């Protein structure tokens, strides 16, 4: 299969089950909501060393938030309920509670409850106020600019982490341009995040290392500088590879994000220096979710 002359390899991305939640952060204006959201999702690129993977899902208009102020929706993914709980408390406590004028709400209506304000309320040192409105409980924690309003619990749902595709390009500039186009298109898709900086990762990894202490190391088969040194997966024409990792709340969301991302990357065409699109997997034996590139990119039938 080729799209605008770009080869879509007959392979699949292998992804894993994760636990996720959505939080809605609001503030007096969009700038401060974004400050808090960026801090909360900082250093959350990979569960390998960050504890969770997190990213900004989208910005919200005042009419879309519980308290009628501008907001940002963020998604957090972790490998266990315990770790997700810990990450929520640490990140909201240090990055949202601390940011001027902010409030924090659950962004999912269903799922198992995880403590949010229920844990953070103790910062109020007994001056916190519980307020039950409808079926939901909120905490009003006194802080120096007024009150930090926080929903009692957030909801956890089953999710998928590790969807991905790789852009193989002639030059680093070609790969970067295609990646930027892909991420820009993918950010319009709800229920997914691309957790790496700018949504793009250059240090794709393989499991294991020659060094005992390292659980993962560079994906040498995709490093252009090692083409003649290792059993390289890269054709002669490829000079740079960039990967886009996708975490999502559902298979459908990752499918759609992959589709629009690859479509955008391929819009540059073969003449734009894009050689091929492939995906990372471990042979299909580790992760239960397989995102087959050619199935995803197959032309849609009109109903």
């Amino acid at each position: 299969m080729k799209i605008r002359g770009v080869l879509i390899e007959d392979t699949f991305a292998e992804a894993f089950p994760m636990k996720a939640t959505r939080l809605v952060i609001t503030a007096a204006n969009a700038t401060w909501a974004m400050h808090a959201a960026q801090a909360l999702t900082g250093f959350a690129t990979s569960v390998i060393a960050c504890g969770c993977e997190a990213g900004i899902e989208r910005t919200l208009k005042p009419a879309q938030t519980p308290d009628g102020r501008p907001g940002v929706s963020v998604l957090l993914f972790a490998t266990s309920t315990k770790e997700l709980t810990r990450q929520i408390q640490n990140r909201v406590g240090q990055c949202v509670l601390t940011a001027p004028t902010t409030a924090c709400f659950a962004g999912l209506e269903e799922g198992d409850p995880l403590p949010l304000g229920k844990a953070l309320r103790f910062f109020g040192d007994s001056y916190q106020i519980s307020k039950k409105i409808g079926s939901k409980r909120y905490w009003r924690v006194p802080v120096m600019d007024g009150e930090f309003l926080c929903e009692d619990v957030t909801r956890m749902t089953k999710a998928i982490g590790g969807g991905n595709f790789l852009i193989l390009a002639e030059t680093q500039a070609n790969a970067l341009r295609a990646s930027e186009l892909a991420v820009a298109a993918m950010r319009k898709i709800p229920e997914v995040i691309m957790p790496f900086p700018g949504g793009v990762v250059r240090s794709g990894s393989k499991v294991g290392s020659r060094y005992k202490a390292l659980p993962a190391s560079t994906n040498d088969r995709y490093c252009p500088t090692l083409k003649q040194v290792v059993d390289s997966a890269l054709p002669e024409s490829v000079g740079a590879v960039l990967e886009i990792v996708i975490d999502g709340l559902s298979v459908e969301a990752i499918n759609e994000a992959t589709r629009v991302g690859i479509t955008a990357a391929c819009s540059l065409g073969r003449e734009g220096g894009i050689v091929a699109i492939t995906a990372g997997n471990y042979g299909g034996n580790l992760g239960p979710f397989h995102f087959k590139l050619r199935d995803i990119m197959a032309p849609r039938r009109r109903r």
Partner: protein
Amino acid sequence: MITLRLRAPLPCLLDASGLQPSLVGGMDITALSQLKLHVHGKARPLGEFFTLSGKPDNTTLCIAGVTPALQGLGKEMREGLLLLEGSCGDAVGAGMRGGELRITGDARHRLGAGMRGGLIRVKGSVGDFAGGPLPGAVSGMRGGTLLISGHAGARLADRLRRGLILVAGDTGPAPASQMIAGTVIILGTPGDSPGSGMRRGSLLLKAGADALPPTFVPTGVHELSFITLLTRHLETLDPRHARALRGFRSVRRWVGDRGCGGQGEILFAGH
């Protein structure tokens, strides 16, 4: 929906606590007319007091021509919609846990006393101790919502523990007295000493700053996000009254009752 209509004014008090949609709404007319009501310790058929019409429906029951002689209406109700056309007696909806109760007229004292859930709407006015405790109980209402379109008597929300009470009109003396938690909104003029003995909870007032007990202390003017949540919640229940909350975007906040170490708050609109 089945409608029960009183045939004539009742000569005595009648225990009507069993007349609830989930208990009798599904019965056919014949069975329902034979249902026993207790009057002066004697069991008498319901059909002796009421005419019955409509189709069985276990979600909605209407009682027309309600008078204060009907006792225990909506007592410990759990589900369904109970429509009460007329003016009710004491303790309507006492101990209610769910469902909705609508009263087209007035209600006397202790409306919703000790209720734990559900929604009571009153088109008219109510007597004393609405949302307060059942006799001998430590706390008042512990959940649910009271929406009163008219006025309320003395000691509204006395010892309120949880839940929401809105009064569109004025109230008698000492609203939110000894309030433990929860939310009370008074859109008219509150009586003297609002919030006296208040421990926690929120009392939202549009007027009556001059009637505050001296044991409340001012903490300044604030914009509190939870009021937007409260307004949006009220919009789902009663848009007309929710609009009146727009004046609370910026509030002057008083804390008390410091006379008893309380941390309750009284929020005045329009600052």
